[in-house]
């Protein structure tokens, strides 16, 4: 099945693209997808970064099982925090 991934902020800059479409196996979770992306784009390994996860514009746990054509966003820290030079 296919899922759409949107990348923002530091993740978008590191990959050099904001929108990806990926083929993944049925039953894959959000965490599985993130591991797969990190293998494809090693620059996504930002040391110490705390991500949140959103599917179809709602926050979910990393154990959420994905469905065909889901829109997945890996949410880096939002604007309230301190500088992250990693």
């Amino acid at each position, binding site marked *: 099945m296919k899922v759409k991934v949107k990348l923002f902020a530091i993740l978008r800059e590191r990959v050099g693209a904001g929108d990806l479409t990926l083929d993944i196996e049925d039953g894959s979770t959000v965490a599985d997808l993130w591991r797969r992306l990190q293998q494809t784009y090693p620059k996504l390994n930002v040391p110490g970064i705390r991500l949140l996860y959103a599917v179809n*514009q709602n926050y979910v746990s990393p154990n959420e099982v994905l469905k065909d054509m889901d829109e997945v966003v890996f*949410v880096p820290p939002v604007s309230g925090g301190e500088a992250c030079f990693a």
Partner: protein
Amino acid sequence: MFRVTDRPLDLQELVDFVTDPEAGAVTTFIGTTRNNNEGRKVIALEYEAYPEMAEKELIRLGEEAKRRWPICRMAIAHRIGPVQITQPSVMIAVSAAHREAAFAACRFAIEEIKRIVPIWKKEVFEGGEVWIGTQSGEPLAPGKRP
């Protein structure tokens, strides 16, 4: 009124929106770009949003504020793109019969925006740029909203 926009923000528009004959108090909060941060000389801030989800989260936090406090109306506008020194990046306006609720809900709104609304901030300073974010937040508990 919950809006993410690349245009300059207008405080009076938000205040007009929350004006209500039942209200005796209006509070507003404006976040502006300041010229320094942690010893760095700031040139500008650049905001990036996941706009559809950001607006949904703003609406959701507005509903939560109405559940928690007896407020009349709330309006939030967040700018994206470059925001120069002294210019506003976010504006909140809240009306209520009494000032206690108006202050509490306004404070709640900005804390929630900075905690949970998917809008990111890049600081452009003399000598570089950096995405602002915390490395030490709590990880998201499985199945819980942050």
